[in-house]
């Protein structure tokens, strides 16, 4: 096996190379650390820690084009990966159309689940520009919201889809 295909822990730490929100980085991750914990330690606090057991979707990040649960992925597994967090999508001054739609539709209450929901929505709209309501609900079924009744978020995704087409 090629040397760069096997990482060895040194002093309890793996050194990994990865791209986060377009920036190529070399970072250290503690042995046993999840991608969720590592991203938050590296300052990306938009990745939320909810259940930490893969049930709530608050820790959703996009790894190599696919939304995954950051709490179930060892950070070292992201070696050579391309990661997008909510910070990579838009800014307060220039929000992404999906972020804008969530605000305008009134889909945000406490906001804790929203980064994950927006990243799941982005993946859906990237591969399915005109989703049905059932398809939206299916795409978001892993992102739990404890404030709302999943009505405004669906409207927001429909609104964003229209604007992105």
């Amino acid at each position, binding site marked *: 096996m090629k040397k760069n295909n096997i990482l060895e*822990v040194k002093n309890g730490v793996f050194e990994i190379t990865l791209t986060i929100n377009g920036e190529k980085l070399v970072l250290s991750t503690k042995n*046993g650390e999840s991608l969720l914990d590592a991203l938050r330690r590296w300052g990306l606090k938009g990745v939320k820690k909810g259940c930490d057991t893969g049930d709530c979707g608050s820790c959703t990040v996009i790894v190599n084009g696919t*939304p995954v649960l950051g709490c179930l992925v060892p950070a070292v597994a992201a070696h050579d990966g391309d990661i997008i967090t909510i910070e990579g999508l838009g800014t307060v001054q220039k929000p992404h159309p999906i972020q804008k739609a969530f605000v305008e539709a009134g889909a945000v209450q406490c906001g804790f689940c929203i980064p994950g929901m927006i990243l799941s929505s982005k993946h859906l709209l990237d591969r399915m520009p005109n989703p049905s309501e059932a398809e939206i609900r299916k795409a978001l079924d892993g992102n739990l919201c404890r404030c709302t009744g999943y009505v405004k978020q669906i409207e927001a995704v429909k609104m964003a889809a229209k604007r992105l087409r």
Partner: protein
Amino acid sequence: MTHIKYYAFPQTVNEALALLLNKKYKAMAVAGGTLVAKTLPDTVETYLDLKNLPIKGIKISGGNLIIGAGASFDEIDHSKLCRSWAGGVVSSAAAKCSSQLIRNMATIGGNVARPHSFNIFPVVLLGLDARVKVVSKAGAKTVDFAGLYAPGFGLKPGMECIITEIIIPAKTKKWRCEFIKLAKTESSWESYITLFFAAQKEGKTITQARVAVGALSPKPFRASAAEKAFLSGGAHNAATAFAMELDSARAGEYRSVAAANLLKRFIKGLV
């Protein structure tokens, strides 16, 4: 997983196998990681990440449906080939697994390597007479899916061998099938009941019948008495035989009654 010393990203099956069999590494293969990522045994020192292996494709070969062990539930759910097979039951079963985020990560290989009774695919593959291609020290071989869990198999998937392909035989392409999952919510991983029923009908005669049981027993199994009664024609007799088999498997009274009624409904729906 703080006891891990190495994290490996093999690019080929041979590389993965070499590492798995090298005693220095004490390796365990992990596919999607949703079942085992957080619960690796203490004895494991190398996390063998299978995500880069070229075992993700879904194709038809020799008339059979071949699903690469690394295909995710989401890929199976959206695969045109899977959707066109046996009324789309393979895809619709994949879609019933937990949540979209889990379906993006979890793979069919990982799901069958650990025969947990809540897992979706063991019950479906048992009912479809599937075969599994595994690669081990002795080379590649294809075994009946049921054989994977038999004591005589002698190899632990992910520890001593790697599952590379799931083969669903051509004869099942036109079967009438139903996969049923009853759980607290649609996205619950834990299910009260998972069942798979299949039949092939020629004229008015049932020529093939399959009744497979998942989350009603510790290990998935085929209900052979129910299948026999199903073939001989009577929905009522099949349901009675099925309930008795489920009682023997200690499935619980309400679940046995519910499962038997679901079988009866499936058989009546064939008419």
